[in-house]
């Protein structure tokens, strides 16, 4: 039984079905979808509040998404811990700066990788809040509820992502 948990990988169908069950449990026990991007707004708001309380008070967005350590915030430390447990018990944990697919195309340059990752992260956070959710909030949990907006958003995530990845790896990085 324990061997099942120490396997390096499960079939994506098994892990996916597990996430489907987990999503239903979150609706049942916590009356909310599992979303990840809200946590970054709350964390950013808490940082802003600590650094400049006066200008923080005037930011309308934080009136709607209140920066506090709550359910939506704790999901992110939870994911870090859960993924660490999974990787550690299966011997997959290792520290690295540049993923292999990136270095195979753009070379082993940690600075370049971090700069592009920060740029990507900015657009990701900005876009997620613009669209009102991310791959888990819209892509999985919105689709589960048959939300029209979520299904359209998920298609746009992949349309934008596929187009950009193809330009990055097939045009720029040849």
């Amino acid at each position: 039984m324990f061997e099942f948990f120490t396997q390096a990988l499960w079939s994506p169908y098994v892990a996916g079905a597990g996430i489907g069950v987990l999503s239903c449990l979150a609706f049942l026990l916590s009356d909310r979808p599992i979303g990840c991007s809200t946590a970054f707004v709350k964390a950013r708001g808490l940082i802003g509040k600590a650094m400049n309380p006066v200008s923080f008070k005037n930011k309308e967005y934080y009136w709607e998404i209140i920066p506090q350590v709550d359910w939506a915030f704790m999901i992110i430390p939870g994911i870090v811990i859960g993924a660490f447990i999974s990787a550690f018990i299966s011997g997959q944990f290792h520290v690295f700066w540049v993923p292999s697919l990136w270095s195979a195309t753009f070379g082993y340059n940690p600075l370049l990788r971090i700069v592009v990752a920060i740029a990507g992260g900015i657009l990701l956070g900005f876009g997620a809040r613009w669209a009102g959710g991310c791959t888990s909030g819209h892509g999985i949990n919105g689709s589960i509820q048959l939300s029209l907006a979520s299904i359209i958003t998920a298609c746009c995530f992949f349309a934008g992502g596929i187009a950009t990845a193809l330009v990055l790896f097939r045009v720029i990085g040849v």
Partner: protein
Amino acid sequence: MLGLLFGIMFGFLLQKGGVTDYNVITGQLLLTDFTVLKLMLSAVIVGMIGFHLLKHFGHVQSHAAEGSIGSNVIGGLIFGVGFALLGYCPGTVAGAVGTGALDALFGGMVGLLMGAGFFAEIYPVIKSRILTWGKFPAVTLPEFLHLNLWIVIGLMEVFMIGFLVLLEYFGF
């Protein structure tokens, strides 16, 4: 602290499913590795039936909200560009940090916090001008199609399972 517990289980499943790996996510966007879609569709196939059965018996309520072109399409496309540049999404970037990815920690997490901050800055400007532009005519897919809920669920399940069977058939 139920959120932390759900996060731990979610992160565990994301890592076991292989989607906390930059190479797997980028492979999906390059259409060479379909692990991400297999995982997401499996989650939706199971979750859609589970959620609507629970809802039918009154145990859960819908959180589906109204959407618009200005919010969902524009935001979704901006997200997509960031998705490809970073190679992680807001959930899997946290999972990648747990597996030891420093580009996810010092690149992705830092960028996401900055992006959320920039959005908070421009929110009052775009709120009424762009985010509400081009409202979708319905909240849910059955309302949009004017079809019975369970017929739409049946069609979606057949469509998603059929897509996965075709992927395997063609060797992806």
